[in-house]
């Protein structure tokens, strides 16, 4: 699903540099990325998603050479192949839960919001336990419910890869495990791989593989 070779990246402001000699993620695999703050975990997700472009090296995702695509192509690829789940949910306050789930279709002309998508949204929402709350705005939902909406939004386009950046970071301990299980369950049904950044070591046993980013970075460092 994801293959990285000889990746280097640095911000123009200098200081931080990321080096990844090699990394791969198989189809349907669930991998956790852990490491101290500022070690480059989120940067790695952004590079895989094509939001950032590497200085050197190669990134392939779902058969596409992401680092070789133009900006417009990377955006199109991201919209169709990658689902994002953020720590702060990133829901739009002015849209209902239903419309937040449809949001990728509102901002991507290549995606068509048809009856099948609407039905899929209903199914996803019901599976996530928010089927009866789709007409509510985020402010009327609990944090756990908001993250469930965000998971539905990430999965609605049937992506091949889910990138989760501290998706459970804002949730209470009980909700964390439930939300993560839900994410895995839905990703598994959709046939998607999950690469999740987390600081929560109690959740690590739920992943198939754990990537300690600090070690990983050390290994990659000169």
């Amino acid at each position, binding site marked *: 699903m994801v293959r990285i070779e000889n990746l280097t990246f640095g911000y123009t402001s200098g200081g931080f540099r990321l080096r990844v000699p090699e990394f791969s993620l198989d189809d349907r695999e669930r991998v956790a990325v852990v490491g101290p703050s500022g070690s480059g975990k989120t940067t790695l997700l952004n590079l895989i998603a094509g*939001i950032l472009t590497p200085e050197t090296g190669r990134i392939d995702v779902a058969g596409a050479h992401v680092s070789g695509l133009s900006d417009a192509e990377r*955006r199109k690829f*991201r919209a169709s192949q990658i689902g994002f789940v953020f720590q702060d949910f990133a829901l739009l306050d002015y849209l209902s839960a239903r419309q937040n789930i449809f949001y990728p279709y*509102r901002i991507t002309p290549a995606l068509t919001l048809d009856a099948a998508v609407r039905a899929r949204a209903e199914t996803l929402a019901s599976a996530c336990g928010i089927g009866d709350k789709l007409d509510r705005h985020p402010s009327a939902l609990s944090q756990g419910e908001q993250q469930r909406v965000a998971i539905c939004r990430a999965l609605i386009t049937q992506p091949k890869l889910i990138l989760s950046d501290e998706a459970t970071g804002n949730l209470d301990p009980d909700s964390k495990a439930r939300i993560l299980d839900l994410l895995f369950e839905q990703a598994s049904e959709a046939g998607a791989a999950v690469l999740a950044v987390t600081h929560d070591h109690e959740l690590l046993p739920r992943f198939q593989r754990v990537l300690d980013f600090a070690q990983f970075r050390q290994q990659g460092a000169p």
Partner: protein
Amino acid sequence: MNALFLAFSYLRFHWARSLVLVLVAALIMFVPVATQTLLSTSERALVARGEATPLLLGSRGSQLDLTMAALYFSQERPEPVAMREVEAIWDSALGIPIPLHTAFSSGGFRIVGTTLDYFDFRDLALASGRGLSVLGDAVIGSEVAAILGRGVGDTLVSAPENLFDLDGVYPLEMPIVGVLAPTNTPDDQAIFVDIKTAWVIQGIGHGHEDVVTAADVAAGTAALANAAVVQYQRITQSNIDSFHFHGNQDDFPASAVIVVPNDTRSSTILKGRYLDGESPTQLLEPGSVIQGLVDRIFRIKSLLDVVTAIIAIAAVCALGLAVFLSYRLRAREISTAVKLGAQKRIVLRLLAAETVTLLLVSGCIAGAGAAIVSRNADTWVGWLLSLGA
């Protein structure tokens, strides 16, 4: 379509903020257009009334006061001219004089004493009732009828000049015999009576009980008139014969006299006759006086235009800042959209849709407002002009 849907959802959710932005933008668009429309209509109405009145005769003094009193029935009360000036115009056979007596009012509207020639001259048509025929009759303008809620068969009472002057002018109750069709001119806001009725209001003419009865004559009793003699406050069929005027009618007053010359030559001759600076009367062309007033107003208007432009620029800047801040508030949404794969043009479209929707709604409101102003400009200008009267 999706961008519009999102923009509309955003604006609807943040309705208070959107409403303020829409109203501010609508005002920025509406105010200059409405002002320009009203000013243009005012200029047209003022000049048209002035140009439709060829010559105006009155006492020497402020030409503007005389013109405003005679054409717009304003509160200015120019020194009256004697009716002998009217006779002099008739005798010259150079034009038709139409005297106007505008000293009194009723219910906040000016009572205009004149002759039947005025109705022909202004081409005034009756919407109901009949014209003036008997001393004491009143024909009212359409707005007088609408605002006072009166019509044919009702009565009006002239306002006393001074409530505390018991020796002053007595109020006269006048039956309304006709209501004029609307003209969007000051005539809509006037109460027309025969000039003799105006003189009765002024106290120059009056009617009262017989001081000497047939029995007194037969008995040879000396007649004595005193305050006990009842003065009539309304002219009726039974008492109209008792009304009479004291003094020489040539000395009776008129506020001004509209003069309609027979032709250009007559006009020139008439103007020449009143060129003497020592003469107590003056003959002027109201069109020129009004044009002078309009020129002055529009000189001030050009200054106001500059002020308005500066205010508009400041308002547009403030609106721009508000829109920019709105964009800043949506920065997180834009970041999310980019991460989810939105193309640059889509992001721009999302932001533009909000602004365009705001401007469209504002434009519609401003356009509707401008259309209402445009449709009612004549009426409102007439009303505005009457406010200064």
